[in-house]
């Protein structure tokens, strides 16, 4: 499980809005599925969570499974894996002196448990790559 937090200098309502409506602005540019650093990324109350490149290409990034403004948001999350192996992010917005603490807890679900910890061999196997590569020691 990954746990990280940050204190934002604003009310929980605004923190929730920044997180959900301004994802295009905080999502790390090099980590966008569309390769478009200016792609639009949105998570919506109805459940959709997507990225849309400026040329119109669209990719599902996950699903919103709990939408509880301004306290909590839960996402099924595909980046890093794929829709068949979602991980889960629980984002809490806690009122605190000086602002709102956003606490992100990100962990595997049962579908992604075996890929979570042990990256190199297991994950690359999933891409059907490594066994063949390992067989050829000239790659190492």
């Amino acid at each position: 499980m990954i746990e990280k937090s940050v204190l934002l200098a604003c009310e929980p309502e605004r923190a929730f809005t920044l997180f959900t409506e301004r994802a295009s602005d905080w999502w790390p540019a090099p980590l966008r599925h569309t390769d478009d650093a200016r792609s639009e990324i949105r998570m919506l109350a109805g459940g959709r969570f997507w990225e849309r490149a400026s040329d119109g290409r669209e990719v599902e990034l996950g699903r919103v499974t709990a939408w509880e403004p301004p306290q909590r948001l839960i996402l099924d999350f595909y980046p890093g894996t794929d829709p068949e192996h979602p991980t889960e992010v629980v984002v809490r917005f806690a009122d605190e002196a000086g602002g709102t603490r956003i606490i992100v807890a990100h962990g595997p679900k049962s579908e992604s448990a075996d890929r979570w910890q042990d990256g190199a061999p297991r994950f690359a196997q999933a891409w059907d790559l490594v066994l063949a590569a390992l067989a050829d020691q000239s790659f190492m």
Partner: protein
Amino acid sequence: MHALDALGNPVRRDILRALRTSPLAVGELAERFPVSRPAISRHLRVLEDAGLVEHRAQGASSVYAVRVQGFASVRDFLDEFWETALSRLEELARE
């Protein structure tokens, strides 16, 4: 670009599949894909930046091979993701 995200692109996945059986020169790769040679070179550069392939010079050409050590864990990818994302959120809130 991080390894796992470099894999988000279908052409790059196909390039890796092509490379898994044997290393290939850029020209050989370009012949196998319906995209231009400069496009192949760009994809190779992304894969190499992500640590997933490596190349060596062979005569006038570059030969690319899969780099097995480059595949990091999902956990590492997401850790890096949130590290960057939360610091950007902090800046946004100050605007």
